[in-house]
């Protein structure tokens, strides 16, 4: 049971980690779909 709960906790950590890493590495859709000639937001 402990191994299962640890694994589920690991899923949460890895998931949040992955989202943070990808966002910071510039892989958000907004960044991928824009260039210097495209202005998104304000």
């Amino acid at each position, binding site marked *: 049971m*402990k191994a299962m709960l640890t*694994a589920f906790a690991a899923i949460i950590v890895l998931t949040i980690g992955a989202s943070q890493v990808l966002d910071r590495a510039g892989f958000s859709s907004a960044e991928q779909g824009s260039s210097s000639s*495209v202005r998104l937001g304000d």
Partner: protein
Amino acid sequence: MNRFVLAFAVLFAFMMQAFAQDTAAPSADVDRSATGGAQTLEDILKRQRGEKVDYDFRRNATGDPDSAASMSSQLGTLGGASDPELWRALRYGSADVTVSSGGQVASVLMQDGGMRWLLFRQGPLATYGGYLLLGTLGFLALFYLLRGRIRIDGEKTGRTITRFKAVERFGHWLLAGSFILLGITGLITLFGRMALIPLIGHDAFAPIAQASKWIHNNVSWAFMIALVMVFVMWVVHNIPNKTDLKWIAVGGGLLKKGVHPPAKKFNFGQKMIFWSVIVLGASISASGISLLFPFEYPMFAATFNVLNSTGLPQLIGFGELPTQLAPHEEMQYAQLWHSIVAFLMMAIILAHIYIGSVGMEGAYDAMGSGEVELQWAKEHHGLWVAEVEAAEKDREAKNAVPAE
């Protein structure tokens, strides 16, 4: 295993059929003078009958700058191509489009093949995928009614044996937990429009869809890590061997009470689950990465090229698979393949969950506490128990040797 390969081939075949290119015989002899070169009633009827229409007459009617009227005459500013001709060029991808951002991908303003993808995704994919899952659940329910719970036949000993170490159970649950999350959010993505919006409305579905996408995209990494873990830990125990033949000969003892074929750490049924998960898991990860980083890792043109060179698609009547794919087509194939593999995996895993929980007494402990009832282990993994006991005796004997 062969069964899965076959099922795979058949599914792939269905997919290809839906995507077969229009390869009707040239219709140069069709007289379209009555419509001034546009489609005729016969073309429309043919399409409605589901027959193939050769659209070259339309594809190539994109105007001719060389015969353009001079700038001073009527419509001269269009440069030899009328608006309909320009739209046709855009539709069939022959227009000269320049974009300031987004590269080659953004230069595709209209993608005809997208309709085939959309219809396949909403139609056969969702329908047969849904039937597969419901059919599997129905089959398992029927199996339960007919066979009941597979009980431990012999007298319980009250003693246990360690079946899976903590790290093995961790790897399993990392894979299982992420798979279930990916499965549920994937189904929400595919069936949301069809099943959830009519039920809860657009406003309620929007945040669910958004959350599903976020979970699906980000949980994928845990799944891939776990897949590698599980492969490394268990591949040695999953190499098929002669013992498996005995297991197959009696159907694993699943159908009859008191039948227990010999098995090592994993029996043939488990080996099938293992290899299905590894092969399908690797394939779904590859197409998943392709989808996660759109247009960065196209893989279908290359795959089709390899398949063409084996002669297999030609052999089963699909002819040469297309090896020139628009970036969007690559994504569409990746999406379909991702879903097809996902449905297969979900069906297999439903059976795995069944036999590991309600379907068999004592099976869950292997992944719960890791300690299984000795009698259960002897009945289902007799050779493995003998191995473990022999190793233990060896160790004891060594420890018993007095130090000199």
